[in-house]
């Protein structure tokens, strides 16, 4: 405090301070009248995702309510809605493909329960003191059954299957809160600690690792912390090409908003329509165009994370630091076990001047993999390069037949390619026009040395269009006794072929041994290339007619497939994460010492297990 002998200047400062403090106190009085946190609520919500997600999204399937595949009265497949390029189109040969591939029939329907039976949802067990204090903050929350069930699951097969069957969830969140900004999250976490409430962060809800599942043994009140309303770009720094963004923003909004200013992040995971920035950080996401822009860990410059111990963040935005192990890497991939990511500073790039799709047909998968390997070796991978196996080629062919963009068959048939062997790689080039064309030539030249033939831009583009609608297909399958799932891994180059073959074979064998009556569909694609290896994505589906417990059968087969992946030198996950689905292999994957290291971080940051989703460890 200033002494009596101080000048009037210091008195003036003290006066000013008092006024400010008084002002703050005044504001707090106003809290009750509901006009607080003006900095949080100043702008109207511009995001795509409303608090009531079920208003625009399916409660028991993928994506928007208005968009879905169905077989119309003529038995032809149709994609409804207006949102996608495929929307409103009829796909006449999809039915043939579907019936022939799975031995399914459009006459054998397995319809879903039409609506959520709210009485089958476990009643909310609320922590009254927490609710009282939360009310005082003015942060919106809900304990309606629909809201809680929506946040009790991700998009694993067993989760969606249970919703469709109207099965009762053992445990769902007891309430949902919608913070509007970082400070709201700080308050919520403080209250959760104070009242010993379990918090489960919820971003886009696209998890496929059971990461959002509530631990059934959790007896505390479970609060789902939905970040969807924290969706603003707070500032853009064009000098350093970074943007500071609230972590609840979903991919499509982030790109749209940045595009308005002439920028993009270039981070485009297949789930980008719905998945959130915070979710990407929490799972170590990977985007389709990582060859140009990098994966999420390459894009993040700064993170703000609210944990039970307080807020973690670095003191500067230096592009690289040698300050001990990077604390960002405790957060990247922490899967909601340590805290909530609230704000992210990430790299942005000017929107590329020119984009060009492309495709190459190879006589077989081996040739395709060899080509991708060579491309990676020469470090000339396009923004995206993906190799689909023959099964996916067959599917792509059938779904697009008779569509405006028709597949140009001629060339490869002429070349004597076996249609049951050939595979196709899809490419996406980005940059200035001249360089794209140069780059394109380089890649096609390499492809040619492996017997690859350029197969046109349209075929390439089609592949990428399919990426976003393919998730909708699972719902169609489930309407007709077909269950499907995808899983991924990363693997050194020399083991790619062996791994793909062995995993497919293992799936086929396991299905047979477990009484699956129909030949399963097993398909894979190489979706990312790295210097030392590749990311491989598997699709697996089968007709489950005749099985008593298809989900259980499915889970056993996937389990076996994962064991096969690990035995063949593949990783536990490339970008989906571990969640609770793959926890059992963590020790094997990172050693028990490694698990211990992670555990000690958890114990320090969150000693009371407030972030109690029990993922990872």
């Amino acid at each position: 405090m200033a002494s009596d002998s101080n000048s009037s200047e210091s008195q003036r400062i003290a006066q000013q301070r008092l006024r400010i403090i008084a002002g703050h106190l005044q504001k707090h009085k106003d809290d009750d009248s509901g006009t607080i946190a003006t900095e949080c609520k100043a702008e109207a919500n511009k995001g795509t995702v409303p608090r009531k997600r079920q208003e625009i999204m399916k409660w028991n399937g993928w994506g928007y309510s208005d968009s879905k595949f169905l077989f119309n009265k003529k038995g032809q497949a149709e994609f409804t809605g207006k949102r996608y390029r495929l929307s409103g189109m009829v796909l006449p040969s999809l039915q043939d493909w579907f019936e022939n591939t799975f031995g399914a029939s459009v006459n054998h329907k397995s319809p879903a329960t039409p609506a959520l039976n709210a009485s089958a949802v476990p009643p909310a067990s609320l922590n009254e003191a927490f609710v009282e204090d939360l009310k005082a903050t003015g942060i919106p929350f809900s304990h309606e059954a629909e809201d809680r069930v929506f946040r009790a699951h991700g998009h694993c097969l067993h989760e969606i299957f249970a919703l469709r069957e109207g099965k009762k969830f053992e445990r769902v969140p007891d309430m949902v809160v919608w913070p509007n900004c970082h400070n709201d999250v700080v308050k919520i976490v403080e209250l959760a600690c104070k009242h010993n409430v379990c918090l489960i962060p919820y971003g886009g809800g696209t998890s496929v690792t059971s990461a959002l599942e509530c631990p059934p043994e959790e007896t505390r009140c479970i609060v789902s912390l939905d970040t969807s309303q924290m969706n603003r770009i707070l500032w853009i720094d064009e000098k350093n090409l970074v943007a500071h963004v609230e972590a609840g923003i979903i991919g499509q909004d982030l790109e749209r908003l940045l595009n308005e200013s002439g920028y993009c992040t270039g981070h485009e995971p297949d789930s980008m329509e719905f998945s959130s920035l915070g979710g990407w950080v929490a799972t170590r996401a990977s985007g389709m165009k990582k060859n140009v822009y990098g994966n999420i860990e390459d894009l993040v410059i700064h993170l703000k994370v609210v944990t039970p111990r307080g807020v973690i963040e670095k003191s500067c935005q230096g592009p690289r630091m040698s300050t001990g192990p990077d604390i960002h890497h405790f957060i990247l991939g922490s899967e909601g076990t340590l805290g909530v990511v609230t704000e992210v500073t990430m790299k942005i790039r000017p929107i590329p001047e020119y984009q060009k799709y492309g495709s190459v047909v190879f006589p077989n998968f081996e040739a395709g993999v060899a080509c991708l390997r060579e491309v990676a070796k020469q470090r000339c991978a396009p923004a995206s390069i993906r190799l689909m196996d023959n099964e996916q080629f067959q599917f792509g062919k059938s779904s697009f037949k008779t569509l405006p963009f028709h597949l140009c068959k001629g060339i490869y048939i002429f070349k004597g390619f076996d249609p049951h062997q050939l595979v196709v790689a899809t490419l996406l080039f980005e940059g200035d026009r001249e360089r794209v064309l140069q780059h394109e030539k380089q890649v096609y030249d390499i492809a040619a040395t492996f017997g690859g033939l350029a197969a046109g831009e349209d075929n390439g583009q089609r592949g990428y269009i399919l990426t976003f609608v393919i998730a909708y297909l699972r719902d169609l399958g489930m309407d007709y006794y077909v269950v499907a799932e995808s899983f991924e891994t990363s693997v050194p180059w020399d083991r790619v072929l062996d791994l793909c073959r062995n995993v497919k074979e293992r799936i086929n064998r396991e299905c047979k041994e477990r009484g699956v009556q129909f030949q399963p569909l097993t398909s894979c694609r190489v979706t990312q290339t790295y210097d030392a290896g590749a990311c491989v994505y598997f699709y697996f589906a089968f007709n489950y007619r005749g099985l008593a417990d298809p989900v259980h059968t499915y889970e056993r087969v996937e389990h076996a497939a994962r064991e096969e992946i690990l035995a063949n030198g593949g990783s536990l996950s490339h970008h989906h994460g571990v969640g609770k689905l793959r926890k059992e292999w963590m020790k094997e994957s990172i050693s028990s010492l490694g698990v211990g290291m992670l555990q000690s971080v958890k114990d320090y940051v969150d000693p009371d297990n407030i972030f109690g989703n029990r993922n990872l460890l």
Partner: protein
Amino acid sequence: MASKTLYSQRDPMLKRDCFEDILEERRNSSDLKYALRCYAPVLYKGVTPCKANMLKNIVLQSDQLHYVINQVSQESGEAPDIIQEEASVILEEMAHRLQISTVRCFAFALSKAFKTLFQHVCVNEEGIQRLQQAIQEHPVVLLPSHRSYMDFLLMSYILYTYDLALPVIAAGMDFMGMKFVGEMLRMSGAFFIRRSFGGDKLYWAVFSEYVKTMLRNGFAPIEFFLEGTRSRTCKSLTPKLGLLNIVIEPFFKGEVFDVNLVPVSISYERILEESLYARELLGVPKPKESTSGLLKARRILSEDYGSIHVYFGQPVSVRSLAQGKVNRSTYNLFPRHIPRKPMEETQSFVNDTAYRIVRLQEDNMVLKPWVLMASLLLQNLEGLELSVLTEQTVWLRGLALSYAAFLDWPDQAPTAKVVSSSLALHRGLACVSGDRVSLVVGEPLGPVTPEEALFNRAVSVLSCASYRNQVLHVFLRPAMLAVAMHTAASSKKSEWPGLYNCFSFLWDMFSNDFILCPGDTVQDFEEACYLLVKTGAVQMPQQDIVMTDIGQPTLSFFNGLLEPFLQGYQVVCRYLCEEASEGLTEKQYIPAVRSFAVKLILAGNLRCYEVLSSDMQKNALAALLRMDAVRKVKVADQVTLIVNKMAVNSIDDILGGKLPTQKALLARL
């Protein structure tokens, strides 16, 4: 100690397939047509067959080989090109040149030969069907038993007959000595490996890559003999692991999804090499394989060799076997093209697998009545009455059947007929004079010394023993228990812990002579108990194992069955304790034991001729080495044997019927 796992692993009521005689059709239709018929086997996942030259190129260009070439080049200072050239020469010397025309020639010639030599060549067709299925699904490794030179010709002949993919066969280099024949064999699918190439990295690399390339690509089933060489005694030999390691590794490295191992049991009613083997065991060196030698063998064409049974066993999936035993992900952290010594876990898995496969071969070996008769004759070297022999053979048949022996006993024929026709087929070994049946002793040419007479007799005994040996795997475990009980009876102890100790000692002692899977002592003991109880020979009240009233014949037969082995090992022990000089070299060992035994026999102190067999002598030495009673020391170029006389003496005592003391047991631990 003995775990309480039930005797369950081995099904005593094995289900076995029926046989089909493939010569029958050959006798009724044209051999030429057969040799020229359309041959279009199904291949692994429909691969197109690979030309021998292409195969060589794949091998020479492989990363695996390049790595070793560079390594050798760095070590030796030679240019990589030169080493590469060397590799190419090795491969040239090794590689097969399978040609369908040669196979057709063989098909024709062998049809003729088989029809003259054999009454029947019987094959289980269900096994063939399983094999056909297996070939399409995963790479197949054929693992036949090895009793005769005939084996691999026969195998290829059968596969050709059933329109199955012809195997490529690992053969010993010694065949290459036979100029013309060697090349013929090469063109019918044989590839040749040197007998020893211990430290030669390059040779090993070329060889293993050659085999693995064929396996990975599934061009053809790979065939080799787990036993490594022909068994001269008709007992299965301790499996060799080198090639098995090579064919299993691609599975561990994820290069193939699975590998199917198919045990094949080839049983000869009469072995072509019968007396040749006996002479070889007695120290007449094996004649070098030569074309003229083979032609001389034409003499044998005029004889009747009965029938052959070939049983293709259930394919064994390496993947299923390895489940839970080998963690394949341990291969993730090392580049796959760099050769590496297999890990301990893998080694013990391969070892275990090898033993299991040999036991599967044993299980499906077809036994003829003569095998039982030979067992009885050897326990009555002075001969026995035909009626007694017949009666005991019938009794033994019952015993063998209840122990799940795969006995080919003519269904309809009266017993007397069965016995007499067996005797007729083996008239070279046993003769009936008046009412007595006894072993034939080779007719001496000119005047004979006592030693020569002794050796002539030994040839008969060893030849006969090679038939008895065929049934040993059926009786071995209960027989060892019977010996243990006999030993215990003299010291009036019958509790099973003591018996188990004794059994376990014998098990250990004989594990070079018989196929005893490492680590299976307890299980084998349980199996022995189970079988003896099952046939009513013993009872097991509480802690005891006691003979029943009706158990006497069984137990004494079993004691007699193993007697030659017990005696033989004792002679070896005695030699080492009493006669062996200080600087006994490994080379001197066999002739020295032999002359020691000859002296004992001539002096009338020993009646066991089987100890003259170099096989038994080697096995006994190996056992003593394993038990640390004898040590090998390398002095200059010579390997000398250092004998721990105390230890050898106490082993001798136990074999002679004294219960192993705790001390002796500890000593061997």
